[in-house]
């Protein structure tokens, strides 16, 4: 299984969610993407986005103000 990484630190909204959207669009099913974000709104956004798009939010953590999310593309 492939794992991709996106550094979206420093990006303002809608940067991070757009990056995630594009990356997942081009990825094969079941690919896991780890994204690091400093935009505080991303935490709520990624939860809602995964729910609506049916991609799986594997984990969501915050370390020293950096939000780290792992998302698995739906199969």
């Amino acid at each position, binding site marked *: 299984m492939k794992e991709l990484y996106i550094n979206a630190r420093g990006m303002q909204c809608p940067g991070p969610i757009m990056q995630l*959207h594009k990356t997942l669009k081009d990825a094969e099913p079941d690919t896991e993407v780890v994204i690091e974000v400093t935009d505080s709104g991303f935490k709520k956004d990624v939860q809602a986005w995964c729910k609506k798009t049916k991609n799986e939010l594997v984990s969501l953590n915050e370390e020293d103000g950096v939000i780290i999310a792992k998302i698995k593309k739906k199969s």
Partner: protein
Amino acid sequence: MNKKILIIGGVAAGTKAASKVKRDFPDSQVTIITKGEHISYAGCGLPYFLGKVIKEKKELVVRTPEEFKNEQGIDVLVKHEAVKVLPEEKKVIVKNLETGEEKEFEYDKLVLATGADPFIPPIKGVDLENIFTLRTVTDALKIRKLLDEGKVKKAVIVGAGLIGLETAENLTHRGVKVSVIELLDQILPPFDREIALLAQKHLNEKGVDIHTSEKVTSFVKNENSKEIIVKTDKGEIPADLVIMSVGVRPNIKLAKDMGLKIGKTGAIKVNEFMETSMPDIYAVGDCAESKNVINNEPAWIPLGSTANKAGRTTGLNLMGTNKNSFKGVLGTSIVKLFDLNLAKTGLSEKDAAKYGFDIETVIVPAFDKAHYFPGNKLIITKLIADKKDHRVLGAQIIGEGVVDKPIDIIATAIHFGAKVEDLTQLDLAYAPPFSMAVASTITAAHVMLNKLEGKVKTVKAHEILDKLNDENVQVIDIREEPEFIIRSIPGSINIPQTELLKRAASLGLDRNKETILVCKVGKRAYMTYCTLKYLGFDKVSILEGGITAYPFELE
């Protein structure tokens, strides 16, 4: 010399006045008389004592009567009630609440610091067991005991003011299911409605059940379950604990009985030197009226910060040597509710309207630190200014980020009579961990100037609600599709910014329709607005504060 200073009431204002006068005039004879068991306690900390943020009672007591006596030479009589003042004879009749014995105290100067008492509405059953107010250490101890014994699973708080909601948070942290019942149509009455609604959303997310526009009609005890049934005009809620938090009223009984003038706010009328209508009698703290610095109208905003400042002024003035004046208040206040911080200063939009100001308002989301610095959080600033002279009249700030700094900046600016233009010029501290390069306050002032100068036409969130069903209006969300999917205003359509500009240039956008542009915070909408204006679209406006500040239902 050796003047007798008698102070009635010993929480914040009374003890502050006592300490100040004794410090400056060590030969004065200072006595504090207080009904309660505790003096000089941190009343504002009581909700946190329930939540165990403050572990023990002793942490709340700032100073004890013994400390006042031994360290400062101030006599404190607790559990003593001043029952009558005889101004002509300069005497006070004081009752010892333990023995019932009455005694006369003479004074040269008298200070009334009788505070404010919780207002208890005359609701049937309000005197049932396990219905409390939260004003004194004694109240807090009783409630804390019930919580510690695990007897409280669900609680009802009547009144959604600052103390009521702080209590709701603290009880939730203790694992209690909390319902809050508010008579008015919004929580946090000093704040404007759209700000209060954002706070209400957050409280709901945290599991607090909020009922607005609902009136408690009676309390009934269920003899089987021992629960209190809180009956309202809309239903009933069972509770193991009820806290009445519908506000406080100035304690003016003594003042009224002796014929002191009472102000139109219902508190004791005083001048800027804290002198009442009778010679040698002062009033200070929650029992005394103050003045609104903005328009000099009488104001009564009982807060510990004001009580301490006015207490110091009183202490300085008691000997009449150098007159120190207390200018008044702006109504600055702040509260933390779970992860959310809210603060206000000056006039709210509804206050300003009440006082007849012709105002302009803006709502501007921004970050509290550099947007790229880890840990930055969003805050939303609402600014209220006078249309005529651009004077800043008030502000409200809400968000998970730092709100105390910007509200204090604006409070300071208002105190010195600043205009919106002055705010844009402030040299504020900047480095990425502390602020954006353009501080949130300055951004808000820029948006306000754009609006005052007619550079942008905006629509407020509540105005858009009516327009969503109007076929002559198109509400266009110009964010990217993935953002729109996450959450959007029901009834809005999604045409991303670049696509919209393309359509506008190729006449694929109806220019006769009223168009409202929506984005996340208002920035992209403003940029698009400028381009559309340039292309000759004149029926365009933007949603103020974007989706971020939109307090109504999203889908």
